[in-house]
C-alpha cells in the first residue's frame, strides 16, 4: 500500500467521525402553526354569566318560619306576589324583595316559595329566580298544579 492511499483513507475516516446526526426541524413551525389553527377553531373564550341557585336543605321548618315565608306565583307571564297574590311587574318584584331584607335573615326565614304553572316560559321563570337569588332568597320550588 502506498503512503498516499493510506493518508487518504485516514482523512476519509476522520470526515466520517465528524458527521453529526441531525433531526430535520424545517417543518416544525408549519406543524406548530397548524396546531394553533386547530386550537383557535376548537376552543372558546366565552365567559359564562349566571347565578348559583340556593335550594333549601331537607331540614324541617318551624311553624313560625312557615308563616313568614314569602310566596311568589308565576302564571304564564304574570307575577303574583305575597299571600294576597298581588300582581307585580319585574321591577316592582325587585323592589318588594329588597324591602324584605332577606340577606339579614337566618336561612329558614330567607326561604321564598316559588309556585309555577306548567305553561310558564323559561325566560320569565329565569328572571324571577335570578331576582330572588340576587336579593338573597333561598328558593323552594313548588309546581303550581301540586300546590293547588
Amino acid at each position, binding site marked *: 500500500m502506498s503512503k498516499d492511499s493510506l493518508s487518504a483513507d485516514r482523512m476519509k475516516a476522520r470526515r466520517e467521525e465528524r458527521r453529526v446526526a441531525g433531526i430535520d426541524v424545517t417543518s416544525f413551525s408549519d406543524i406548530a402553526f397548524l396546531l394553533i389553527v386547530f386550537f383557535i377553531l376548537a376552543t*372558546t373564550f366565552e365567559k359564562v354569566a*349566571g347565578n348559583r341557585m340556593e335550594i333549601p336543605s331537607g331540614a324541617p321548618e318551624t311553624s313560625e318560619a312557615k308563616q313568614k315565608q314569602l310566596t311568589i306565583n308565576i302564571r304564564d307571564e304574570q307575577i303574583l306576589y305575597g299571600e294576597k297574590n298581588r300582581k307585580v311587574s319585574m321591577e316592582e318584584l325587585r323592589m318588594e324583595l329588597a324591602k324584605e331584607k332577606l340577606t339579614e335573615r337566618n336561612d329558614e326565614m330567607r326561604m321564598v316559595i316559588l309556585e309555577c304553572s306548567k305553561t310558564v316560559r323559561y325566560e320569565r321563570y329565569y328572571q324571577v329566580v335570578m331576582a330572588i337569588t340576587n336579593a338573597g332568597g333561598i328558593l323552594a320550588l313548588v309546581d303550581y298544579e301540586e300546590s293547588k
Partner: protein
Amino acid sequence: MRMKRRKRKVSILVPIVSMGDIAFLLIIFFMLASNFVKEAHVEVEKAHSPDIEKMTESKVSVKVDRDGAVWLQGEPCPVELLESGVQALVEGLEDKTVMLTIDKDLSHELYGDVMLELSKAGAEIALVGIKEEE
C-alpha cells in the same frame, strides 16, 4: 459614453428562525387558556336577565334544548337517568356545581323535572343566561 449604472440587488431577508419557538409558545398558551367546545351541536337560546354576573365555569354541564331534550356533557341523557348521571360526575369533585342552560322558550312542564332531578343529585345548580343591560 454614459455608463449604465448597475442596480444593486438587495435581497430582503425576514428572520424566521424564532417562528417555530413563537408558534409553540402560542400553542402552550391556547392549551392552558381555553375550554373546548363540547356542546356546539346543542342549540340552546339562553334566557336574559339583568340580575346575573359573570361566573367561573364548572366541569359538569346540563343543557335542555328547544325540543326539551336533555344533554349531559354534550351527550343525550333521558331525564330519568339525569340524577344518577350527575351524581357519578360530581362525585369526588370539590366544586359540585352543575351549569344548567335551558332554552328560553321552553315551558315549565319540560324543565321543571330537570331541576328537580338535579337537586336530588345533590348538585349545586348554576343557571346560565345572558346579562341584560337595563
